[in-house]
């Protein structure tokens, strides 16, 4: 799979602001394909997790109500410039991806 996650992590004072963009269709399961007139099966991210220093700093349970190509932003303390943050997601079809980024 191509890269699905884009991460920007920026440290200001003692707080790290993380912005995450994931490429994902986020199908609700109620939309019809305009050509085949068949329902497009539900396909959405269920879990997004962020880890720093091996510790989970952010965890989200998400439903199909999150927009296509989801964007999340959050802030946490306990990491500084140069530290690595790892973002991972899992969807309802068992697909998953993770990526690491360095805090700037």
């Amino acid at each position, binding site marked *: 799979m191509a890269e699905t996650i884009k991460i920007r992590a920026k440290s200001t004072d003692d707080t790290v602001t993380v912005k995450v963009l994931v490429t994902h269709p986020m199908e609700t399961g*109620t939309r*019809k394909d305009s050509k085949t007139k068949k329902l497009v099966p539900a396909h959405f991210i269920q879990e997004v997790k962020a880890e720093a220093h091996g510790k989970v700093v952010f965890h989200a349970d998400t439903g199909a*109500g*999150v927009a296509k190509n989801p964007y999340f932003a*959050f802030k946490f303390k306990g990491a500084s410039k140069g530290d690595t943050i790892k973002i991972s997601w899992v969807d309802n079809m068992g697909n998953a991806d993770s990526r690491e980024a360095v805090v700037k």
Partner: protein
Amino acid sequence: MSITRRAVIKNAVVAGLVTMAGLPKLLLAAWPESAFKAKSMDDAMNALLGTTESAAGDIVIKAPEIAENGAVVPISVTSKIANTESISIIVPNNPSPLVASFDLTDSEPFVSVRIKMAKTSDVVALVKSGGQLYKGTKEVKVTIGGCGG
């Protein structure tokens, strides 16, 4: 001799049990399926948080007054409540009202996300703190729905 052998095995078993007890907790931070499948806000709240009661709280929701495209509505929620444990975002007028639930025990009480909205609705942010539930709402008018068609 045999006693030390026993002790070693015992330790190994105990260590194994501890690891096993620890793992499922991590893995089974299970996705709350019933809450996400709920068709009403009350059902979703009951399934996710075990209650529908909430007090008004100091919660700031940033969202557009009018969203032209309901498929992508940027919102951000900041909780000014001490010890914010989680923020859950609910859109009562969506077919499945629960959008997402963020565990913020180890992060700052802020989250930003882009959501879908089927039609004009309140956006509800529920903040859990110290066993108490706080609620903030903001209305967003939607001109084109983001679900279906």
